[in-house]
């Protein structure tokens, strides 16, 4: 395998990973505050939908290259909207978090498609947006072999995702906000007794997860598909959830997990370029990313420890 191929593989890996990274970051923030977020898939759907629709209108309104940014913003906002449902249900009304997450997935899938049909005259897909993101080369850095092509010739969203990994890592581990957020997820009544507003903290976290997962969905619409339809998001939210656990609820870990997954995906494209691949049934090549993920989990990671109070609703006086 030559250097160029490796660089290209890395590049493809990043394309696949970006949305996973963003959504996984959302999952981490929410779960670090103690709220299970199995609704990532739904939040991504909401984000992709809003991005596709609003970028299309922005483009029609003449926003030009700003259109995908409008889409991104709308994706984040729509993610928040659905996250708010999750927050109200699980935090204020103490509904089971898993149930609520599944509900988010249902409602997001149903309502976005319904809206698409309303907005696009019965069509099951939004109109194609021409003004989507394009890869941006970073001068000098992009000349480094392998890594240059792999990392420094990427979509703006990829850079955004990488920056957010750093920001959230810093936020979680270096700031007072992060300390408080984590304490709320580990031991809410401990946080409560030192005057931290547990519920407000959790609301913040869940809404932030809506922003991030919404961005994740928007990324897919604004880089790969340019449209939104019933299968724009098909399982990425669950893979992101896996990345949260795989990455042990740590932003850097999730970055690694998401990249690993993206890399495994890109391997299967590269494999098809080789002669010997003709003899391997294609189904086995499609399976590869998933098999690899399990093998790595079995081999290297083992038990990962969830935040102490994950899944437990909190109310004052809870024992």
């Amino acid at each position, binding site marked *: 395998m030559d250097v*160029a*191929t490796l660089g*290209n593989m890395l*590049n*493809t890996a990043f*394309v*696949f990973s970006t949305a996973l990274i963003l959504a996984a970051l959302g999952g981490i923030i929410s779960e670090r505050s103690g709220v299970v977020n199995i609704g990532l898939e739904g939040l991504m759907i909401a984000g992709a939908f809003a991005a596709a629709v609003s970028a299309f209108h922005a483009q029609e309104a003449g926003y030009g290259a700003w259109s995908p940014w409008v889409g991104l913003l709308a994706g984040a906002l729509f993610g928040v909207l659905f996250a708010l449902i999750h927050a109200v249900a699980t935090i204020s009304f103490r509904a089971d978090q898993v149930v609520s997450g599944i509900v988010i997935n249902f409602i997001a899938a149903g309502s976005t498609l319904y809206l698409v049909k309303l907005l*696009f*005259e*019965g*069509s*099951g*897909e*939004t*109109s*194609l947006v*021409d003004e*989507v993101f*394009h*890869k941006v080369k970073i001068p000098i850095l992009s000349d480094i072999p392998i890594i240059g092509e792999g990392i420094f010739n990427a979509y703006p969203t990829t850079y955004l995702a990488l920056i957010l990994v750093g920001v959230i890592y810093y936020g979680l581990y270096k700031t007072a906000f992060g300390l408080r957020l984590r304490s709320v997820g580990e031991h809410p009544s401990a946080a409560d007794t030192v005057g931290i507003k547990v519920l407000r903290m959790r609301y913040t976290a869940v809404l932030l997860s809506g922003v991030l997962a919404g961005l994740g969905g928007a990324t*897919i619409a604004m880089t*790969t*598909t*340019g*449209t939104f*339809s*019933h*299968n*724009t998001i*098909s399982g990425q939210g669950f893979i992101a959830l896996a990345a949260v656990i795989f990455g042990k609820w740590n932003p850097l870990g999730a970055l690694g997990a998401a990249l690993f997954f993206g890399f495994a*995906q*890109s391997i299967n*494209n*590269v494999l*098809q*370029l080789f002669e010997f691949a003709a003899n391997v049934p*294609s*189904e086995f090549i*499609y399976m590869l990313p998933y098999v690899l993920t399990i093998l790595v989990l079995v081999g290297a990671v083992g038990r990962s420890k969830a935040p102490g109070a994950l899944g437990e609703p909190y109310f004052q006086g809870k024992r």
Partner: protein
Amino acid sequence: ACGAKNDNEGAASPIASPTATATESPAATGDTSGKDMKFSMVTDVGGVNDKSFNQSAWEGLQKLEKDTGASIKYLESKEAANYLTNINQFVRDQYNLTWGIGFLMGDAVKDAATKNPDAKLAIIDNVVDAPNVASITFAENEGSFLVGVVAGLTTKTNKIGFVGGIDIPVIKRFELGFEAGVKAVNPNAEVIKNYTGAFDKADLGKAAAASIYNDGADIIFHAAGGTGNGVFNEAKERLKAGKKVWVIGVDKDQSLEFGDDVTLTSMLKRVDEAVYRVSKDMIDGKFPAGVITTLGLKDNAVGLPETSSKNVSKEILDKVEEYKAKIISGEITVPTAQ
């Protein structure tokens, strides 16, 4: 995307597909010989706006509505179990003709036809052996041969890509015809193939295209439905980055949707025409019940759109015509799958 686009640009299509109208609005124009007749179709899980054969078929019915005043309706299948129940819904509702759109409908159409001998059904892309069913298939290999000729003569790198959806006979016909066309005019060219395993995953199509272009190819022919959108997106992106690459579209004239700057040409598959024609035959009392119709170059049911002349040189198009004549005359036999 297409649903809305049809309204704006559909009329410009060389297939002359009519302006899309709401599902059931009564037709205002055209002759009214089909006025009391009801036509229907059942889509597969791709849905009616799949930018592929489901949509094309629906456009055929819409034209029928416009021209004849027939009433039309469709049902989308959410899962395979719905194929039969959806078809039966129409059959029980006494529709004059019900279309099963797509290869996957075969068993359901057969079942409904056997149990309802009085009903009339038709199927696209599959063959159902029943006296009350019209089966329509296409010689995709013939049309693909022609776009293969275009690709073989256009490539500068002598590397050409093919992105397939799922590895099934229909798609195999595209692949084999295409490869034969390329080799016929350019024996040195290499065809890099990638089956993505899905018809509805633009992200997989994009990644597949990326790796093929990266490998040096300058043209990709896709036969992958929605997955192919990813191929176009990748090509556009390379174009913006200053690298000229081509895509050859499929089923419809995809230059209308994705633009001339990346679409070299398309391999038309006139599902709309087939649906329109067979339905019209029904109105005229000439329904080809129990007949298997294979539509190929000679029927103008596959081939290149007129817009091809924008990007394909006159000489090459002449070559295409040459090969077309040879295929129709039987001088060349294009390889096919099953």
